[in-house]
């Protein structure tokens, strides 16, 4: 177990460094510097700017400087928000993004899994059809449409919810629904189909034949195994929430990292794009690592089978 953990940890650190390297060189291969404008900047100013941001150093020196900074979580200055460092943007935006993200994750788990289960147990009954209808709708309508519809009806027409910001508890409802909608529907569909498959297995029939109570058959035997595919979806789910936050934070005007990231993409603010990509990648890799380790602790098959490859 310890070996597995150490192996995964080394692998994760290696991945993060590799991503940082690739992203760094990608960003520096873009023709034109960060201060290239349509109107040429006077040479003097250009020189001072380049000196200030160490852009006149050889690329390899810049690279090692950047990597050194990365180890101390120093991601360099933002090119478009003068006087702000990229890590300051991340620190400023993280609480808002994290709150929405965590709430959305909780929603997905406490609503998605149970409705998937119910739908499977009541297969071909009205409840099942209703759940599947909404779940299908959830994976076919893009999150930005859901978000705009929420704003249009609940914030605009009915006035029940605030249209932007995160100032009151009510204002969390819109972003969280829009952010969790896709994954929630996906989890519900996944739970349903995997539950249906498990219920057809021989060992479930055996359990029933042995006279176990229905509740115990479902809770003890079926549910545990049915949840395995759902757990493997956690990685993609985190990715979906991370990237989903880009549009959700933009539409609801939430001052989170996602919005800063989209702004930096629009402004071609290369250091911010670079820093935030590395941050997102590192965050994602670490989250997936934690999930995998927890998973290995619970299910011994993973440790010696798939995960140890």
């Amino acid at each position, binding site marked *: 177990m310890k070996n597995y953990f150490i192996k995964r940890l080394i692998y994760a650190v290696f*991945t993060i460094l*590799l*991503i940082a390297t690739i*992203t760094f060189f*990608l*960003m520096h*291969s*873009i023709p034109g510097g960060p201060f290239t404008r349509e109107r040429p900047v006077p040479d003097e100013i250009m020189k001072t700017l380049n000196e200030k941001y160490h852009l006149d150093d050889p690329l390899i020196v810049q690279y090692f400087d950047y990597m050194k900074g990365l180890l101390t979580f120093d991601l360099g200055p933002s090119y478009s928000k003068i006087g702000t460092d990229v890590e300051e943007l991340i620190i400023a935006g993280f609480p808002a993004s994290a709150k929405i993200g965590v709430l959305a994750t909780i929603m997905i788990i406490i609503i998605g899994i149970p409705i998937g289960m119910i739908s499977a147990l009541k297969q071909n009954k009205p409840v099942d059809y209703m759940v599947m209808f909404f779940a*299908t*709708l959830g*994976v*076919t*309508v*893009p999150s*930005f*449409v859901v978000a*705009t519809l929420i*704003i*249009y009806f609940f914030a*605009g027409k009915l006035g029940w919810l605030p249209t932007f910001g995160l100032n009151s508890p009510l204002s969390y409802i819109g972003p969280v629904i829009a952010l969790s909608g896709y994954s929630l529907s996906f989890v519900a569909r996944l739970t349903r189909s995997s539950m249906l498959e498990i219920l057809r297995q021989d060992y479930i029939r055996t359990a029933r034949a042995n006279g176990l109570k229905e509740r115990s058959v479902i809770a003890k035997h079926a549910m545990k195994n049915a949840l395995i595919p759902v757990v493997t979806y956690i990685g993609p789910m985190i*990715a979906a929430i*991370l*990237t989903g936050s*880009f*549009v959700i934070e*933009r*539409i609801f005007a939430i001052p989170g990292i996602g919005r800063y990231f*989209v702004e930096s*993409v*629009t402004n*071609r603010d290369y250091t911010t*794009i670079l820093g935030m*990509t590395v941050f*997102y*990648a590192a965050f*994602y*890799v670490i989250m*997936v690592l934690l999930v995998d380790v927890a998973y290995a602790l619970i299910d011994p098959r993973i440790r010696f089978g798939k995960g140890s490859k």
Partner: protein
Amino acid sequence: MDKNKFVFVDKQEIEEEAYRKSLTYWQDAWRRLKKHKLAMIGLVGVIAIVLIGIFGPMLTQFSYSDQVNDYKNLPPRLDLYQVDDDTFIYLSGDYFLFSVTEKGVLVKRLELPQENKDIINKVYTYILDGEPVILDFSYNLLPGKKGYDYDFTLEYKGNVTHDVYKTVLNKIYPFGTDSLGRDMLTRTMYGARISLIVAFVATLVNFIIGVTYGALAGYEGGRKDNIMMRIVDIINSIPLVLYVILLMVMLGNQGLWTIIIALGSVYWVGMARLVRGQMLALKEQEFVLAARTLGVSKKKIIMRHLIPNAMGPIIVSMTMMIPSAVFTESFLSFIGLGVSAPMASWGTLANNALSGLITYPYQLFYPALAIAITMLAFNFLGDGLRDALDPRLRKG
């Protein structure tokens, strides 16, 4: 046991049952797909969307970039006010009056000379056929509206009206127009074309890279496979949308190709994994051994023996990849990384509609509906194909 309980089976009947035409894999799959109702709905939907994307924009009288300055932000349904016996007026959200026939055909926008705009008293005087049309929308200025239950009145040739006479469909612009006076119907159909081109080409690129990479890794096995799959693992270990955004930023906005390259060069990893898994299972089978014994080259074994046998899962995965490419493309366009104006994809259309959402919700509605229908159609078809191509579900 009583002998009478047993009945002789009619031999003829059995033989008829057992006789069936021999079907190839694809004929069998098609037979099963036809039985899958949702999949057929999906297939019809997909064909319809593709046809609309190809021919739709040719059939309308407008092009996707035609701007008509007079007809901005017109909705698909017009509320008409009758101001004279056969004179009907539509009042737009930004206080323009339009003369419309009773059937809903736009005639023209009424002239509003600058000096006729009384902004302080909120009374505008428009000209229709030389006669003034007076729009008085000062009622909201009155304290408590003084008991009036309407917001404005229209006056023409002495007739005063404030009630909607009837609501008609916009005959010239069935989907309305956008903020530059472009026909939304044409643009939505044109958006289908762009979104589908992006999705299909990106999926094709994914297919080529993914299948080649996966087949090589799976067939070679051993250390080569190990290294190749570690690379895939690393690419797969960060959210793919991030790579796409990076690539889009790096390539700069050079039209349609940027987004196709960005999507195509990232999403192949899933395909590579799938194909590798198939290869690992297939290459141990006897027919590959036989081919190898006969001295067939590696390339030929992969192309002629292995890939055709793995085609089922590959096709299912491609069918699922297309809607997710449409999704990703619209997502990217929505955050401002999509195709550049005046080109339009469903994502850019939705993005453009965002600023005027409260007043002109229809501008978001049609592209969003188009995305949803496409997603549904491809997902239904993909689900059906998965069932139809799965050899485990094969019966008789």
